[in-house]
């Protein structure tokens, strides 16, 4: 990683248009510099845990928020939630599901696996950008994460 400032937000999104719109909303909320992007579930897990899931002892990346789409190539969003929430190193990282799916089964499954929040992406951009900005600002400036002095 060549980041100068370590990323505080991981955005996992495969759709390039949704990605651009989400980044735009984060930028406008003043959170643009903090974001790292992963384009599928495997890339997301590699980024958080280190390549190949990392060794159990290696510290995982410190993140304050993961914005996660559900329908992803290689390894889907539910699998990502399940992996990160069952690993003691990453369990405390807030995961906000940001998806087009309003299927009751997806909502239920996400919470069951330990997601912290579930946001259905609205079609209207104003509402979409509001939702992203609110989630970002809440978890980055209102919420008190563990172990950060």
């Amino acid at each position: 990683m060549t980041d100068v400032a370590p990323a505080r937000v991981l955005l996992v999104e495969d759709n390039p248009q949704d990605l651009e719109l989400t980044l735009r909303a984060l930028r406008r909320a003043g959170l643009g510099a903090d974001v790292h992007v992963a384009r599928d579930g495997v890339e997301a897990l590699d980024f958080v845990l280190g390549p190949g899931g990392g060794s159990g002892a290696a510290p995982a990346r410190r993140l304050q928020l993961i914005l996660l789409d559900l329908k992803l190539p290689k390894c889907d969003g539910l699998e990502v939630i399940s992996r990160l929430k069952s690993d003691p190193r990453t369990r405390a990282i807030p995961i906000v599901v940001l998806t087009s799916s309003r299927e009751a089964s997806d909502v239920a499954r996400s919470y069951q696996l330990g997601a912290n929040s579930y946001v259905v992406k609205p079609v209207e951009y104003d509402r979409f950008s509001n939702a992203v900005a609110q989630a970002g600002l809440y978890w980055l400036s209102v919420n008190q994460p563990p172990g950060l002095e």
Partner: protein
Amino acid sequence: MKTADNRQATLQLKDALKELGDLKAALDEHAIVAITDPQGKIRYANDKFCAISKYSREELIGRDHRIINSSHHPKEFIRNLWATIGQGKVWHGEIKNRAKDGSFYWVDTTIVPFLDGEGRPRQYVAIRADITERKRAEDEVRNLNAALEQRVVERTAQLESANRELEAFSYTVSHDLRAPLRAIDGFSEAVIEDFGPLLPDEGKRYLRTIRAGAQRMGALVDDLLTFSRLSRQPVQKSQVDMGQLVRDALEELGDAQKNRRIDLRVGDLLPCLGDASLLKLVWINLLSNAVKFTGKREVAIIEIGCSAGRHATHYYVRDNGIGFDMRHAEKLFGVFQRLHRMEDYEGTGVGLAIVDRIVQRHGGRGWAEAVEGQGATFHFTVEGGAAS
């Protein structure tokens, strides 16, 4: 005296024999009768036995019952029969036999053993009734049932697979169809925000039109999904306070009533048995319609009421809005049916179809009456009334 006694005894004997003869004649009319010796050799066969077995009496006498054995019954069955009558007990059961011409017949059989002075079987009397027709009917019923069950299994599997396909389809629609709409809407907005000053007003108006189109399609997709989900989602019935549902629905419609003068007249609403979340959707749709279509009235009057029926409870929403031409009443509850121009009254045209589907799933029906320009009344019923 002695001769008188003798004569008396002879007369009694005659009477007894006559009685016995009558009984035998009656029995022969009704039943298949055979008598065998302790070894099972046939010593007597009546006409009915000959008729059903298609053997002559001469062919039967002296033979044992293996002559009509159909091989249908397991050895165990035959052993049990002989063990029972060998012990002097009556055996009762159904036996399949084979006639001389190879055809099969079924007999309901009672075999009564008669014992000698030392308790050993002296002879067996078998009385049988032809039950071939009943057995055939039973077989037929059994086969029909099996075929029916098989068909139910097949149909259920077909339905389940159709349902799974529909679910996969809805999932795709909900997920993949909304993403491009978000892009159309989002990037149009981005152009307005970032390059607004470079655009002439007409250009900005076009972009706003593009956004409106994308948002409208988003609403259509959402309504269609709600509609398709209604048929799959199980109806969870409980006692529902319809008055409370109406208050909840009105609260959700709060925004639509802003800056409006609405005279709301809510009568006492009977409770009913239904799915609260689905019935709330009915009220939301009917009430938002009433609010929408009274938009051009100085004061909107919306009346909500109900009446008890024997088998169903009837509810209605009446308004003094623009109404509609009764010639189109039939179309009203179809998906995407609109009776008014988009510019005048917005909406996806799915609302009443949703109402109709929900009401149907509650064993009721929905209908409407109106006078164009004067108002409309929308009715629906929910199964279960005073009689239940």
